[in-house]
C-alpha cells in the first residue's frame, strides 16, 4: 500500500488540479500534461474518482428550457426542443412543453386564451379562468406563422386592447450562426413593416405602436425573415423569408377564447404545477 511518503509532488499537483485550487497557469500546465502523458491522465482520473462523489451533496437545479434550445442551435441539431422536460414550478409562462403543445397541436385560439390567462391583467381582478370574464370589448387577432415545410414556426397573438403581441415559438428551424429571425407585418399590397426581432427559444412580447396596430387585420399577413442579429440594416427584409401566416381574428376568436378559457382554465392551471 502507498503511504503518504510515496506521494510525490506531481501526484499532489494532480490532486490539487482536481480539487480546483491551482491558479490559471498551474491549471493550464496540468491540463496540458493530461493531454500528453498517460501517467498524468491516469493520476487525474484516479483523483476524479476519489473526489467527485462529493458532488452528490449538490442539489440538482433544473436549467431553463432555453439552455437546451441554445445548445441545439449551436450544434445545429434536429432533435425537437421539447425532447427535454420543461422547468417545473415556474408557472405557465415558462412551461415550454405547454408552449410547444400550443404551437404544434393547438389552434392559435388556444394560444390567445393562454395569453389571456397568463399575462398580468391591467385590471386587478384575480386571474382565475373559470370565473373571470374577459373584458367584453377585448379584441384579439391570431396568426399561425408557417414555415415552407408546413410546420408551424411561431404563433402570434395580438391583444388589441393592450396593444401587445406575443409571439410564441413552436418548432422554428435552426438558423446559421450570426442570424436571427425578424418579424414583419405585410399590409395588403404594401411593403413589409418591421415589427421586431423575435426569439426562437422563448416567447417574445412586443408592444405595438398605434400605426402598426391600425394595420392589423385579415388582409394583412405576418412573415419572418432571416436577418443579421441586430435586424435588417435596410428596413426591408434582406434574407430569405422562412415563414408566413395570415391574420385572423377579432370577435369570433374572442368569443371562442372565452369559451375555451372557461373549459381549459382548469386544465392549464393543473399543468402548470
Amino acid at each position, binding site marked *: 500500500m502507498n503511504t503518504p511518503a510515496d506521494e510525490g509532488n506531481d501526484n499532489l499537483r494532480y490532486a490539487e488540479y482536481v480539487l480546483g485550487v491551482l491558479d490559471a497557469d498551474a491549471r493550464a500546465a496540468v491540463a496540458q500534461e493530461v493531454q500528453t502523458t498517460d501517467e498524468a491522465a491516469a493520476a487525474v482520473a484516479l483523483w476524479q*474518482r476519489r473526489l467527485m462523489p462529493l458532488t452528490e451533496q*449538490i442539489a440538482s437545479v433544473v436549467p431553463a428550457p432555453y439552455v437546451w434550445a441554445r445548445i441545439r442551435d449551436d450544434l445545429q441539431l434536429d432533435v425537437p426542443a421539447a425532447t427535454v422536460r420543461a422547468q417545473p414550478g415556474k408557472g405557465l409562462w415558462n412551461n415550454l412543453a405547454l408552449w410547444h403543445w400550443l404551437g404544434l397541436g393547438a389552434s392559435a385560439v388556444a394560444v390567445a386564451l393562454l395569453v389571456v390567462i397568463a399575462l398580468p391583467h391591467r385590471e386587478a381582478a384575480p386571474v382565475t379562468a373559470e370565473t373571470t370574464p374577459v373584458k367584453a370589448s377585448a379584441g384579439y387577432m391570431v396568426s399561425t406563422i408557417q414555415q415552407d415545410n408546413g410546420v408551424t414556426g411561431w404563433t402570434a397573438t395580438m391583444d388589441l386592447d393592450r396593444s401587445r403581441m406575443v409571439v410564441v415559438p413552436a418548432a422554428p428551424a435552426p438558423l446559421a450562426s450570426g442570424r436571427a429571425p425578424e418579424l414583419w407585418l405585410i399590409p395588403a399590397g404594401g411593403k413589409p413593416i418591421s415589427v421586431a426581432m423575435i426569439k426562437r427559444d422563448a416567447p417574445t412580447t412586443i408592444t405595438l405602436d398605434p400605426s402598426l396596430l391600425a394595420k392589423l387585420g385579415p388582409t394583412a399577413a405576418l412573415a419572418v425573415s432571416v436577418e443579421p442579429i441586430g435586424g435588417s440594416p435596410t428596413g426591408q427584409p434582406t434574407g430569405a423569408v422562412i415563414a408566413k401566416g395570415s391574420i385572423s381574428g377579432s370577435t369570433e376568436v374572442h368569443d371562442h377564447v372565452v369559451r375555451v378559457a372557461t373549459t381549459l382554465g382548469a386544465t392549464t392551471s393543473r399543468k402548470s404545477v
Partner: protein
Amino acid sequence: MSVTSPAEREELNRLLIQTGRNDQKAFAELYKRTSSKLFGVCLRMLRDRSEAEEVLQETYTTVWRRAAGFDAAKASAITWLITLSRNKAIDRLRQHREELMDDPSKLEQTVDDQPTPAVDAETSQEYGRLQKCLDALEPQQRDSVREAFFTGATYNELATRSKVPLGTMKSWIRRSLMQLRVCLEQ
C-alpha cells in the same frame, strides 16, 4: 432524478457512448437526465445564474464534440460529465479572479456556507466512504477542502477567506489530500 444508482450509471454510460456516435436522441436524453445535476454544480461554483447557464451550454456543446473520446473503462459517464462542467466553471472563475481580487468586499461575499445535502439523500457507497474519510480530518482542514471543492477557489482565495497565511492553507489542503488518499485506499 438520481444519478447514483448503478442501473442509472450504466444507462448514462450507454447514452454517452451513443452520443459519441452522433446519436442526437441519445444526446437529448443524456441532457435530460444529467443537466440538472450539472447545472447545480455550475450554479454552486459560479453563484450566478446566467454565467452558470453559459457554462452549462459550453459543457454540453463540448460533450457533443468530445463524446467519441469517452472511455467507460476509465471513468463513468457522470464523473466524466461533472468533471467537464467543473473544469469549465473553474476556468471561468479564473478569468474573473483578478476583478474579484481587486475588490475584497466581493471576496467576502463568496465565502461559502455549508453545502446543502442533496435533497433526495440517495447517495452512493463511494460517497459514504469519502464522507467517512473527510470526517476523519481536522474540522478546519475538512472545511477548507470542501470549500475548495465546492467553490473552485484558489489557495490564495481560500487563505484570504479563512484569514490564514497562504503557506498554512497550502499545508492544510495538501495534508488533507494525502490523508484522504490513504484513507480511501484502505
